């Protein structure tokens, strides 16, 4: 058995994992000092003319010198409509290559075929923000992957790339539109996804960069999201994604009265904090009550004539409307969630594409998350220490994504979790979350339909909330209220086997995910 240490939030962390190496335990959200130099790639040169277009993926793999043990990177802008991960790994498997690490910004239900590739030894490592669907289940329950999957936040990923913690051998970039010389944008073609924010660090730091598109345009493909200067090869394939899985029509505000009520309470809390004023900045998750908070703030902004500085993160048509109404000066967009957002980023100069590094990397010289006033977050579970889980479900299985959760919580002046007190029978507030993604020290308050709990470290916030007439109580009281309805939940049965490592944005290990057994 490995040596372990208790990290700053009391989780047992191994000091070493075979195949991954030494680990550093989480020391607190702001305590880990980065060291050393940025990772570098080899110098290259190109001549006049020059042809980057290749016939197919196999050709590109050969030209990039694919061999056993390499790390291949992918972005998740195509979400559940992505074809590329499966296409590339199928090809790798056919070539008899083994021991590949998939370094993806996230993985979705559509990536289920990876299960077979893992079982066959083609894929032996996965580093990602999240995993949805059967792949997560197979990893957590069946322990199919040799090395634990490494879960990173959207800011932690570009940090890991720049630090050389993860060295990308070949980056495969699914491109909605590209020219023959490798310029890429996300706003044209059948798979237009808008911002290409999650692909940028890969392009910059990978040893080889292959752009894959089904929509080749005349040179130069402008606007340029990923420039030709970083791209080795371009491959045109028949289809790189399913548009219906990429973006939805238009994201609407929830109609669920309970979620609306939570959002309205959260907006009251945000207003009570005094942060909603001229030039403020804001970000909200897209799910359920989170986006609806924007809806209630919009009312307040219109009523009081307040104009914000920027809204950030994943972008929806709802934020686009607010931009167009002049309620925000700028949208800083790392990922578009609907067609309206895609159209806006294409045409509106105030709707700005940003990289994941620019958005959330803690180890550069300043990310957008640090400029946030207000962050509205969701949660699968939150514990009495305010630690938040968004990665594993009630059964302990990996089903969600770390995303920008811990990055924005750490950066924003005010970070508020909004969640229904009960999801079905599951209480949201628990003694100890199954898996910690975001440490409680970076969470200020949790707003539910039955009450608001403030982190005891934020006494002044509690006073402001009380003065505004919010139903403030301790998080223990909220938990008791939930358990009175649901009963006390049992603990999930896990074995000692570690199937996942949760890396905090600064590269330290904040938690491990253990194999779930019946």
């Amino acid at each position, binding site marked *: 058995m490995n040596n372990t240490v208790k990290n700053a939030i009391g989780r047992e962390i191994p000091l070493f994992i075979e195949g991954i190496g030494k680990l550093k335990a989480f020391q607190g959200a702001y305590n880990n000092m980065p060291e050393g130099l940025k990772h570098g790639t080899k110098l290259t040169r190109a001549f006049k003319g020059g042809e980057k277009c290749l016939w197919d993926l196999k050709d590109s793999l050969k030209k990039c010198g694919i061999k056993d043990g390499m790390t291949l990177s992918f972005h998740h802008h195509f979400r559940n409509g992505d074809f590329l991960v499966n296409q590339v790994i199928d090809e790798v498997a056919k070539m008899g290559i083994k021991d590949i690490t998939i370094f993806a910004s996230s993985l979705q239900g559509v990536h289920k075929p990876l299960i077979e590739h893992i079982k066959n030894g083609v894929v032996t490592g996965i580093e990602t923000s999240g995993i949805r669907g059967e792949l997560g289940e197979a990893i957590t329950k069946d322990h199919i992957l040799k090395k634990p999957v490494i879960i990173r936040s959207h800011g932690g990923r570009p940090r890991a790339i720049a630090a050389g913690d993860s060295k990308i051998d070949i980056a495969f970039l699914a491109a909605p539109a590209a020219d023959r010389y490798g310029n890429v944008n996300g706003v044209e073609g059948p798979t237009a996804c808008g911002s290409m924010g999650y692909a940028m660090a890969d392009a910059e730091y990978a040893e080889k960069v292959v752009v894959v598109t089904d929509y080749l345009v005349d040179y130069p493909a402008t606007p340029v999201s990923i420039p030709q200067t970083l791209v080795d090869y371009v491959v045109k394939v028949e289809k790189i994604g399913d548009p219906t899985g990429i973006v939805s029509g238009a994201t609407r505000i929830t109609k669920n009265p*309970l979620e609306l009520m939570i959002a309205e309470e959260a907006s009251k809390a945000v207003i009570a904090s005094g942060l909603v004023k001229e030039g403020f900045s804001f970000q909200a998750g897209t799910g359920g009550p989170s986006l609806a908070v924007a809806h209630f703030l919009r009312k307040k902004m219109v009523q009081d004539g307040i104009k914000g500085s920027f809204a950030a993160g994943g972008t929806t048509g709802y934020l686009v409307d607010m931009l167009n109404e002049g309620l925000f000066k700028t949208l800083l967009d790392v990922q578009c969630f609907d067609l309206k957002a895609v159209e806006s980023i294409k045409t509106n100069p105030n709707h700005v594409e940003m990289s994941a590094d620019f958005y959330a990397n803690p180890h550069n010289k300043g990310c957008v998350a640090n400029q946030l006033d207000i962050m509205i977050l969701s949660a699968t579970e939150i514990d009495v220490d305010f630690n938040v889980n968004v990665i594993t479900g009630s059964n302990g299985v990996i089903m969600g994504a770390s995303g920008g959760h811990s990055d924005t919580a750490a950066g924003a002046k005010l970070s508020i979790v909004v969640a229904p007190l009960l999801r079905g029978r599951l209480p949201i507030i628990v003694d100890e979350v199954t898996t910690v993604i975001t440490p409680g020290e970076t969470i200020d308050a949790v707003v539910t339909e039955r009450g608001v709990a403030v982190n005891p470290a934020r006494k002044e916030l509690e006073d402001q909330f009380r003065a505004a007439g919010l139903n403030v109580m301790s998080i223990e009281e909220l938990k008791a209220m939930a358990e009175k309805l649901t009963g006390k939940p049992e603990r999930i049965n896990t074995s000692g086997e570690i199937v996942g490592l949760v890396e905090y944005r600064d590269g330290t290990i904040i938690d491990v995910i253990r194999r779930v057994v019946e």
Partner: protein
Amino acid sequence: MRSLRRTMLFVPANNPNMMVNAVVFRPDAIIFDLEDAIALREKDSARDLLVEALKTVDYEGIEILVRVNPLYTPFGETDVRELVKAGLRNIRLPMTETKEDIEKLDALLWELEKENDIEPGSVKILGAIETAKGVINAPGIATASTRMVGISFGAEDFTRTIGAERSKGGQELFVARSQIVLAAAAAGIDAIDTVFADVEDIEGFRREVESAKALGFAGKSVIHPSQIPVVHDVFTPTMEEVEKALRVMQAIEDAEKRGLGVISLDGKMVDAPVVARAAKVVRLAKGAKIL
């Protein structure tokens, strides 16, 4: 103190989720529905579900009513029997057309109270008037039992029974609504206005609530949580009204202290209706949490 009945939220008794979460929306009362919202073959399951909910869920002081099936159906009496046994203390009787309808329920309740060792007369009745005949008989219904706490108006069935269409202006309802307010006022109980079906039309709903308040209704039956804040807002007294009411209450207190029979304020006599009105404003102000 008389309880407020500004909003009575209908919740179908076959929806376990809403049966637990309805309290969150803080209506003044919740009406669990066993009648129109429940299909014939699910009457038993909805009743069982409600019985268990009443036994275990904490409704945090919100008044709970159940719209039982009419007693002339095969379900009505069983509804009343099982629910009263499970702790129900307020029954909303649908399709009340005559005082005899109330008397039948009244008799059943005396029997059940005795059987289950419940304080006699503690189970209350709200009669729902939904037909022309019921409207005509409203005064008799309102006084048919000492258990009566209110009568409510149901416009959908009513318009059908008079052969009219329901209009946005609501002129076809005017006489009936007034008749119900009058009957309730004379009996000293609450008049509750009809539901408004178009949950998307919040502005239209607000206008109807304003007219209900102007006519003298104590509140409104609502079918969606989003309607609750609108009603509460309309029924919130102005600060001037509240201040005036408080002065009246103060004057009563002073007069009582000094043993005066006649109460006067600003040189005018404060009589019973003025006192009643002031008490109502204070109740509404407390309900709206502005006092």
